[in-house]
């Protein structure tokens, strides 16, 4: 009789625990830009997350994963910090994600550390970000990581003299520094490094200067949006006819290619995500995005970052249940390798930053559309900045 009681109690305890666990909701707070000129970022994050949840369900072992979105409105560190506080203290989220801009990610580093909050950076690409909190991991890229391969490719492919023209702000300086360093180390010559003010509308005088120097190629880094389109269009009308090639990284994103037109054909760039990359995850992501959000939806680096960020969070909940601590989650993520729509990726065991393929791609026409096509893969590239700046 006593034994039966004990068994019943034990069973009750177990069922009770399981019952309690299955009823739990895991909240994930996503801080990103959903309004203003950069609203596309937040939209791409959100759509990729919805696709991920459609493919993998909204529950993990019975625990509901609920995503709460907060709009930081653009590069606004104070607002990002306030939103992180609200999500952690009031909404009691278990994970944080998002962060389009580096200043916003840096602004939440201290709170994240204090709350031991596992936080996935979906974009913010300045190399130093993951150093600022032991609870940061990153699923995007760093600027040095994607810039070094194009400089190496140029040096190996008959391009000897280059002018660089970058937008006059911190990410532009990173791109310029790593392009120049890599290209010179490979025996190339950098004739001049021009920094173009962010507010520039007419790029022709800068390019007229480039034309006089007669380089083999021009390397550019733009901030996205109108200035980037201006940079490429002016190259197409002034420098391309003179036989000066264009080298870049994110500037030939598929979403911007129609604005550049046929002039973009043949432009070579290096980047960690290519829309046409041939793997089943990418095909499924693209198919679901267009099925759910319209036929003109195109996945981009933001989609890949958010999609893989969700993968990390789902894996942590699957392993540790709904009450995963920050240390457990980060411990699990360190060294974790899995397949992403962009190809294989790994979270660096030491730096918590991403290790991933970087692709050399060329703009080509397929079925009447301009797309990037990969022609070379540089496998599993680490962030060079971290190797050069050990902790």
């Amino acid at each position, binding site marked *: 009789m006593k034994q039966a009681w004990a068994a019943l109690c034990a069973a009750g305890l177990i069922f009770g625990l399981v019952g309690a666990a299955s009823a739990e909701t895991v909240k994930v707070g996503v801080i990103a830009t959903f309004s203003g000129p950069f609203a596309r970022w937040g939209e791409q994050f959100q759509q990729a997350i919805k696709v991920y949840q459609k493919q993998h369900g909204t529950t993990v072992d019975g625990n509901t994963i609920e995503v709460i979105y907060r709009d930081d409105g653009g590069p606004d560190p104070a607002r990002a910090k306030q939103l992180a506080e609200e999500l952690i203290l009031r909404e009691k989220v278990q994970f944080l994600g998002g962060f389009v801009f580096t200043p916003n990610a840096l602004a939440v580093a201290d709170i994240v550390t204090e709350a031991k909050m596992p936080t996935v950076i979906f974009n913010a690409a300045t190399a130093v970000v993951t150093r600022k909190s032991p609870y940061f991991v990153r699923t995007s890229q760093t600027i040095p990581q994607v810039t070094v391969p194009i400089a190496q490719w140029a040096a190996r492919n008959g391009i000897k003299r280059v002018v660089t023209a970058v937008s006059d702000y911190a990410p532009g300086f990173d791109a310029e520094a790593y392009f120049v360093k890599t290209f010179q180390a490979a025996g190339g010559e950098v004739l001049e490094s021009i920094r173009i*003010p962010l507010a*520039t509308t*007419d790029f022709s*005088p800068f390019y*007229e200067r480039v034309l006089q120097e007669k380089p083999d190629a021009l390397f550019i880094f733009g901030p996205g949006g109108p200035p980037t389109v201006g940079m490429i269009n002016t190259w197409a009308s002034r420098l391309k*006819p003179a036989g000066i090639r264009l080298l870049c990284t994110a500037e030939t994103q598929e*979403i911007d290619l129609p604005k550049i037109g046929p002039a973009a054909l043949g432009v070579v760039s290096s980047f960690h995500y290519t829309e046409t990359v041939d793997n089943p995850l990418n095909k499924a992501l693209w198919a679901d995005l267009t099925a759910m959000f319209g036929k003109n939806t195109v996945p981009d680096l933001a989609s890949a970052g958010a999609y893989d960020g969700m993968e990390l969070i789902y894996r942590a909940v699957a392993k540790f249940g709904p009450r995963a601590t920050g240390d457990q989650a980060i411990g699990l993520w360190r060294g974790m390798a899995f397949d992403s729509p962009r190809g294989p990726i790994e979270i660096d065991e030491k730096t918590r930053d991403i290790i991933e393929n970087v692709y050399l791609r060329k703009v080509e026409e397929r079925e009447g559309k301009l797309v990037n096509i990969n022609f070379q893969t540089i496998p599993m590239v680490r962030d060079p900045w971290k190797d050069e700046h050990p902790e």
Partner: protein
Amino acid sequence: MIDATILLDGLAYGMVLFIISVGLTVTMGLMRVVNLAHGAFAMIGGYVAAMLVGAGVSFFAAAGLATLLVGMIGAVAELAVYRPLYRKGELAQALMTFGLTFVVIASLTSGFGTGIKTLPLPAALGGVVDIGFRTYPAYRLFLVAVGLGLALLLWLLIDRSAYGARLRAAVDNPRMARAVGIDVNLLFTVTFAGGCALAAFGGVIGAALLPLEPFYALRYLVLFLVVVGVGGIGNFKGSFLAAILLGVIDTGGKYLMPQAAAYLFYGAVLALLLLRPNGLMPAKSAT
């Protein structure tokens, strides 16, 4: 021959500045309304033209239709929003027109998204022309021609026509103008509509250099205001001169010392305004 190229580039850029801000010279310069919604009207024009071109209308017909349509929208806006503001002072005008700009930005964002709206140039303007010492983009030569044509047209209309005389009279002293039988209300509606139409025309024609997107209205607002301010409020000839001067200084600076380019444009604005606080050619009544 590089000097000639810089000069030509500067001239073309100056003409763009003139074309996109000439509408503001009319509404803010001549009519003295602090019209911060100028860029919003320009951008509506651009979006309308882009939609028309997308539907198969030719670029020039689309430019004409967009200009006309925005002129009509401008007339409605003048009756509904601007007329009550004429006597309310500059702060009320700035707030109201800035608010209007946000409404337009939000409307375009919800309708078209935050991305760039492409307005492709016609084939005739997309190519290059041989101008003797080098080939040069046809589009830029077209801008120079359009800018000169507009300046001439405005000069005839405002300085040399009875309409211009009435307008200047009505702005300087509306009560006296009414007393001598000028229909000031109608004159203002027509002129404001004209200013909006010019804004739209600039938005369409300049779209290849200033790409259309919902934040166009704010992104280039400083440029518009600088041209009108440096030129001298109330004088479109001053705006013309200011636009060309600033275009040449900016272009020359970027070419000759790119490291200082960020400062040169605004440095020139500062210097010009320090030397001539009322602008290059202030209106007579403003001095």
